Structure formats: structure tokens, C-alpha cells
């Protein structure tokens, strides 16, 4: 059984069909790429998977259950978490606190014991802090733990978003253009982080990326969208030589 299955997923905004009859399967342990030109409908796919939008027709199936239209917080609960293309950190909070918000999803103590600051709530908070510190070092941000997240550089903010999503302990992690705005060195670093997430933390990764070279070097399976249509699917080599893909990217070097 596929971990995530997109089944004829379609969404229309008024007259615009942003995503049309998209089908793909993501298996557990995949490093899966979703690519396509700007406005192809990639982020919209993420929004449907994470419950921000409900598909007009078709189903999003996670671990055999239809999750289309489930509210975003429930989606995080069942084990899908994401980063945002237009970075959405909790600006006034420190890097560590941002990650702790993610880790908070798996908390055990009641809100009441938080208001009372019960010993268990204190212990739990310390545990979440420790877990979050570890995740910060996974994305090489341990030194920035107490920096205000809105003051951090663009590349660091992107990595912080990954750590925050990881903290929710997802089975499937969705990365929306994680390399956008990064320099080549940062991109190499990011590639190592993504590999580590998959290999060491055993997460399944679905990532959107505009930088073709980055995706080709990183992902094992790729789906290409163009104007909401799925125009190709397969391994990097198949995709690279696919005439439809070359046409969609208007001769950009692939």
C-alpha cells in the first residue's frame, strides 16, 4: 500500500482548474520530487494534501484513509507536515521556540497542567526543548537557538522551517521549494540534510523544487506538472529526456 496516493485529484478556483486529474503514489521511504514551471499547481497540491484546500473531485489517501478535506491540524496529527514556499515562521519567537511549537504536537500533559505549571508540564517542556535542540543541530542551526527567527538569514529560515516540521514527528514531510534563495554552498548543505532526514530519521520526503539540477541530483522519483496537468512521471533520467518536460521548461537546461 502506498503511503500517500493522489487519486484523480482536481481543484478548481472559479473558472481556473489549478490541478487537473493528478495521480501519483508515494511509497514509504521515497525521496519524491514534484516539479513544474511557476503556476503549475505544485503548491496547490501541497495545500490539498495538508487540508488547506479540499479537492473539487478526487481523493487524497494517506495510509489507506481518505484525508481530503481534513483540517490542517488533524493532518499534522496523522503524520504529514510541511514547510512553506513563502516562509511562515513564528517571527517573534526564537529559533528553538519555533521548533518547540512543532514538537508540542506530541505533548502529553493537559493544558490545565500548563496553566498550573505542574512538575510533569515542566519535565515535558524540558524534554521538548532537548528534542528541539537536537533537531536544530540536524539542520546546522544549533548556534542560532536563541536568535529571533525573523532576524535570521533567508537560508537559515528555510532550514529552520524544516526542523520545525520534523519536530512534529511526521511520517511524510513536504518541503515547498526548500532551496529557493540559497547559494550553491547552502544548497549542498541542504541536500545532505534532506538525505539525512530520509536515511537516518526514516521519513518519506515529498519536495517541490524549481531548481531542476537540485531535484535531479536528489530525488529518485519525479512527477512533472504543467498548467495543473501531470505531463510526466518517472526517474530523473526518464524525466530529463522527456520532450514534454523540455517543452514545458521552454528549453531551460535540464
Amino acid at each position, binding site marked *: 500500500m502506498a503511503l500517500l496516493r493522489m487519486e484523480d485529484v482536481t481543484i478548481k478556483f472559479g473558472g481556473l482548474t489549478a490541478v487537473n486529474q493528478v495521480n501519483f503514489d508515494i511509497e514509504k521511504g521515497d525521496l519524491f520530487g514534484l516539479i513544474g514551471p511557476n503556476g503549475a499547481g505544485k503548491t496547490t497540491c501541497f495545500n490539498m494534501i*495538508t487540508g*488547506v484546500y479540499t479537492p473539487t473531485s478526487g481523493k487524497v489517501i494517506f495510509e489507506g484513509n481518505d484525508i481530503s478535506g481534513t*483540517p*490542517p*491540524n488533524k493532518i*499534522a*496529527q496523522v503524520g504529514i*507536515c*510541511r514547510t*512553506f514556499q513563502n516562509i*511562515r*515562521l*513564528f*517571527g*517573534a*519567537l526564537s529559533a528553538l*521556540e519555533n521548533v*518547540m*511549537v*512543532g*514538537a*508540542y*504536537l506530541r*505533548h502529553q*500533559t493537559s*493544558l*490545565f*497542567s*500548563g*496553566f*498550573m*505549571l*505542574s*512538575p*510533569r*508540564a*515542566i519535565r*515535558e*517542556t524540558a524534554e*521538548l526543548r532537548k528534542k528541539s535542540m537536537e533537531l536544530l543541530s540536524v539542520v546546522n542551526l544549533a548556534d542560532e537557538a536563541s536568535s529571533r527567527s525573523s532576524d535570521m538569514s533567508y537560508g537559515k529560515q528555510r532550514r529552520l522551517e524544516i526542523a*520545525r*516540521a520534523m519536530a*512534529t514527528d511526521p511520517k511524510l514531510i513536504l518541503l515547498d521549494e526548500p532551496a529557493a534563495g540559497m547559494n550553491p554552498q547552502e544548497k549542498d548543505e541542504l541536500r545532505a540534510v534532506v538525505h539525512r532526514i530520509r536515511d537516518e530519521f526514516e521519513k518519506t520526503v515529498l519536495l517541490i523544487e524549481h531548481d531542476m539540477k537540485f531535484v535531479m541530483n536528489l530525488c529518485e522519483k519525479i512527477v512533472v506538472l504543467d498548467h495543473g496537468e501531470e505531463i510526466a512521471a518517472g526517474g530523473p533520467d526518464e524525466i530529463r529526456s522527456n520532450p514534454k518536460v523540455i517543452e514545458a521548461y521552454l528549453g531551460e537546461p535540464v
Partner: protein
Amino acid sequence: MSLGKILGKRALSILAAVGVCVLAQMVLTQSVDGFLLRLFFLGGLYVTLAVSLNLINGITGQFSIGHAGFYMVGAYAAGLSSNYFFPRQSLDMPAYLLVSVLIGSVAAAIAGLIVGLPSLRLKGDYLAVVTLGFGEIIRIITLNQEAWGGSYGYNLNHKHQSLALVFLLAIVCIAVCRNLLKSAHGLAFLAVREDEVAAQAMGINLTKTKVVAFVVGATFAGAAGALFAHDSGFINPDLFKMELSFLILTMVVLGGTGSITGSVLAAATLFLIPELLRIAKFEVSQGVLLGVLVAVGVMVYTIRLVERTFHGEKTQKSLLLLGAVVMPYVVMFGVGKLLETYTILGDKFYKANDLRWVILAIVLLVVMLIRPSGLFGHHEFSWDWLRSKMNRRAVEA
């Protein structure tokens, strides 16, 4: 963990808090006059009101400007139930006070739930309008209830000013909010304030978080209302006007949204402005008032100019800033006095009491222009913070 166990662990600090409050009441009632006592009493109430609104506005980021409504619900629920359940005059035991505080806070909590629910769909200005409307609706309904005294107000059978309870309420309110921020649970509230979409994507239940903030905030305001009602033994709808909501909001914004310390300090000082002006005897002429207003403008701009362009020695900069504050007043006061003599503007005089809102507005304006994030920003007082400040000073010296 059961409530009993938690309370057991906290027994010492709870006992200490109760002890301090009772002691404070004993000392104060012995040593100061009625007017000052009332100031202490009101100070405690305003601290509670500001800190509880800070939970909704500052910590959870829900722009609520109808806090006086919850305060009023608490006051009326307590007053009505107190007369209903304890009709006999002159009870010695203030047990009835505890009962009515409980009833007042439960009633306000229900009101908080009712107002909190629409907040799930509304943001920013829209929510502000709803909460403002709520405060006004509650007031107008009460105005038209004959049984509640309508616009004449409502007399309570019992009158009891419990300083100890007011202090205790303020302490509990501060402690609850501070506890929340010290535990990971507080992060959920802050996350909702910072970015709702991201918070929800991290699994935070927006509905639950916002409603809890509203209910807890309203509960404390309701308890404060109950104590307020029993203080004077008389309540009327005019005591809970929109201006009161604005005053509480001003305290939160001025203190720095989200900072408990800021709310406490702003509440403890700001409530004094209207209270002291109420009894102040001075009068201000139109000329001087105009002069002062112009001086405020000049002062703010000079301060900003100095801050922006002058990076010299520290003492020099301080002197310049002092000049920026004092000079405009001296000049404008002189101009104002002249205008007073040569009555170009007419010779209208304002009583101190009429200037309450003018002065409050000026304070707010000045602080917002000079420190847009409030006095404390998002920061809190803590012993560590104080220690690090002291150390830095020691190192510099």
C-alpha cells in the same frame, strides 16, 4: 496529574501568597486612609484586568476591545446572586464574597465562550468590532432591565472591600499567565498570535486555543468585576463604558503586547491618571493646553531626531534627550501663558477631570511614537534578566 497533587506541590507558594495578601491588607488598613486604600484596591483590579486582556490580545493575538463587558458580566452576576442567595444584611463572614466571585467568574467565562466562538472566523478589525459590540450590547441590555436597576444602577445588600482578595486575584492571574508561558503549552498561544496558518499546520487546534484564551481571560475579568461590585455596594452600567475597555487595552498595548510585566506596570500607573485627575483641583486654559499639545509633538520629533542622527557619547546623548523633553515644554508653556493673557483663543478653562482622556491619549501617543512595541516589547522581567543586566553594568564599569 490530579488537581490535588498539583496543589500539594504548590501548597507552599499558595500559602505564601495568601499570607502576603492578608498581611498587606492588615498593614494597609491600619496605616493609610480610605482614599489610598481605594487606590490600592483599584490598582489590584486593573492589574488583573490588564493581565487577563493581555492573555487574549497580547499572548494569543486576538484583538479584543470589549474587556469591560466581561468585567461587567462578572459584576452584575455577582451582585444579583449575592442579593439573591444572601438577602440578610450585614454578614460578617466574607464567605458570600467568595461565592459571588465564583459566580461572577463563571458567568464571565460563559460570556467569554460566546464571544470566543465567533473569533474563530474573524480576524483583526472584524473581531475588534464584534468584541466592542459585545461590550455595548451587554451594557444596553442592562440599561433596559428594570429588575437590575436599569440606568439607576443596582444596590447590593453587602458592601465589603477585600484588599486581600483583590491582591490574591491579581497574583493568581499573573501566576497563571506566567505559568502558561513557562510551559510548552504557552508556545501554542504565541504561535497562533504569530501565524495562524503555520500554527495550524503544526497541529495546533486554533479553535481550542483561542476559545481557551477568551474563557480564561474573561474568567479573571469576571472575578475582578465581582470584587468591584462588592467594594462600593453599587453598580451601574455607566461604570462599564467603552472608555474602560479602551483604558485596559491601552495598558496592554503600552506595556508591550504579550509582556505580563509590561501589563502589570502599565496598569499600576495608568489607572492613576484618571483617578488622580478626578480629585485634582487645577484648571488648564485653552492656551496652555494647546501649548502642551504642540510641545508633545515637538518633543517626540526632537527625540526621534536625536536618536536617529546623534550617536555620540552616552552622557551627551542623554543630555540632548533631556533637552528634547524639557525645552518644548518650557517654550510652549510660555507661549500658552501669553495666549492666556492675550485671549486670542478665548478664555475657556478646562477642569483637570475633563482632561483625563486627553492626557491618556497623549501618553499613549508619545509611547507609541517613541517605543512602538510598548515599554517592554515582548520581554518579561526575570531574575536572570536582572542579573545579566547587573553583570553587564559591572563589566562596563
